[in-house]
């Protein structure tokens, strides 16, 4: 660690959005960087509310740090493998430039007063970006709706105890079809050196909706070049339901509902379609815009079986995706509820 100059950033108020581009729903994130602002890599991954650290470990971080030091030693001769890691020009230079955040936060924190209230949180950047699109009555783009996909989205997981060793490959997935195997060490993905799961997520975040993604792995001491074929819709397998920024989508399209998918047995017990929409209401918001579903008559325990005439077997994440991409503010959406065997037809407003 003493081979680095270490800085702790605690606020996003004056964040340079042309430099610090990462998963803004994280509560812990690391950049490895040259003093000339060339990024060597990123670290920090999350995929659930409850288990925030399951994709991170001291061992994995130590290996990422060592790899960053090696990249630093070989810099600038290795600029080629770092090119894709660099930020993309942002329309907004800092969070305060977003219309919905403008003037709300000062660039410094009020340590003498209510310091936490003076802090702009990273997830608000994501909210602000989506809000612009919603106000234009346009669908939210897939990268904005499903940001920073985990490698699991295309069928493989990386062992958080290592830098980039493949822990599992899902049968029949894009990764499986490409020939990736458990135990392979990912050296590059999309031509970029991979130091961590976060680096792989960066590559996937910027991947196209369909493309051939080159991968180089180390297998039994040899380098093997493979190609993962990304097909239209791959990004929608990315679970966004844990994200703080998804709370906004819940307010917008469900009026403050939190859902839990039903198991097959629960579907049988409830008498609902085994392969259709079946999301149980786990929580009903109580205040303001988050109480719109309550006002519409929805109760905890209700089972959502149709949303805007859609009856596909969605996860809560896919429902949020539909809201972001297929609904517009001001619209009324018909929902169908199964309440202890009784079918109810209700209406939810699509809110700001």
């Amino acid at each position: 660690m003493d081979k680095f100059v270490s800085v702790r950033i605690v606020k996003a108020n004056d964040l340079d959005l042309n430099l610090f581009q990462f998963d803004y729903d994280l509560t812990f994130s690391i950049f490895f960087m040259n003093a000339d602002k060339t990024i060597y890599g990123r670290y920090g991954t999350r995929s659930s509310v409850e288990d925030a650290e399951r994709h991170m470990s001291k061992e994995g971080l130590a290996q990422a740090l060592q790899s960053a030091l090696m990249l630093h030693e070989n810099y600038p001769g290795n600029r080629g493998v770092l090119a894709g890691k660099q930020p993309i020009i942002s329309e907004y230079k800092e969070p305060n430039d977003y219309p919905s955040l403008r003037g709300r936060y000062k660039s410094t924190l009020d340590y003498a007063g209510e310091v936490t209230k003076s802090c702009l949180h990273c997830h608000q950047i994501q909210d602000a970006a989506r809000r612009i699109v919603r106000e234009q009555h346009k669908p939210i783009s897939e990268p904005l709706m499903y940001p920073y996909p985990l490698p699991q989205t295309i069928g493989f997981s990386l062992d958080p105890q290592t830098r980039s060793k493949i822990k599992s490959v899902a049968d029949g997935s894009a990764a499986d079809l490409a020939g990736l195997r458990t135990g392979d060490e990912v050296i590059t993905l999309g031509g970029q050196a991979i130091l961590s799961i976060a680096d792989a997520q960066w590559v996937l975040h910027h991947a196209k909706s369909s493309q051939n993604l080159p991968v180089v792995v180390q297998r039994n001491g040899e380098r093997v070049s493979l190609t993962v074929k990304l097909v239209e819709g791959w990004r929608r397998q990315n679970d966004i339901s844990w994200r703080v920024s998804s709370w906004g989508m819940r307010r917008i399209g469900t009026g403050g509902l939190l859902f839990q998918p039903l198991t097959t047995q629960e579907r049988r017990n409830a008498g609902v379609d085994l392969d259709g929409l079946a999301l149980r209401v786990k929580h009903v918001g109580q205040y303001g815009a988050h109480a719109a579903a309550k006002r519409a008559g929805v109760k905890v325990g209700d089972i959502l079986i149709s949303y805007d005439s859609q009856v596909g077997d969605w996860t809560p994440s896919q429902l949020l995706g539909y809201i972001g991409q297929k609904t517009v503010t001001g619209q009324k959406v018909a929902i169908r509820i199964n309440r202890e065997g009784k079918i109810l037809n209700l209406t939810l407003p699509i809110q700001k």
Partner: protein
Amino acid sequence: MKYLFTVTVLCTLLGALPLRAQAQSERDKAVRLDKQEVSEDDFWIYDNFERAREEAIRSKKPLLIVFR
């Protein structure tokens, strides 16, 4: 009855307000304590990227930037 209801609601609200304010105050205290501890630690530079960059240029070391 209406008077009793109003008093009950007011008491509940007034009772809850200090709790909320207390939680806020605890969070503020934790942030201030964190600032003090990190600032006093020679290893970390607290919330000053440009200062860290200048140090990285001088020492030729890479930067480790933690958002937390």
